[in-house]
């Protein structure tokens, strides 16, 4: 259960950071509504950010294991 709470916290933090980064990137000048190009940028961006998180996570774990000399 602790593990699943930690997981929830992780997902929440991931979403929070994804929103900040994608707002930064896709909405340079906030107008009266979210334009369709801003929307498509935002959906691309959130999928990329999640994929980046996964890639960074697996690279990090691989590296830790390598440093510890553990063979997979």
């Amino acid at each position, binding site marked *: 259960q602790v593990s699943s709470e930690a997981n929830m916290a992780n997902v929440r933090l991931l979403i929070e950071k*994804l929103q900040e980064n994608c707002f930064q990137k896709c909405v340079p000048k906030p107008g009266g*509504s*979210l334009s369709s190009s801003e929307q498509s940028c935002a*959906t691309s961006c959130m999928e990329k950010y999640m994929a980046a998180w996964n890639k960074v996570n697996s690279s990090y774990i691989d590296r830790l294991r390598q440093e510890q000399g553990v063979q997979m």
Partner: protein
Amino acid sequence: MRRAQENETDSAATETHQLTQVCWTKCFTGNVSGSKLDKTEEGCLANCVNRFMDLNLLTVKHLNSMRH
């Protein structure tokens, strides 16, 4: 009712610090002068908050659609 409103305001204040930081960077790019917000700055801040929340809704919707 009174309490609920107070709590809303408290947690809103926490979120407001983050949003003010984000929108300050977007809406005050040049030199600052004068002590009051002008119309452009006010409009930019309101748009910034609302587009940020549009993007939050879009995120939730998109994440849900990816599960199916």
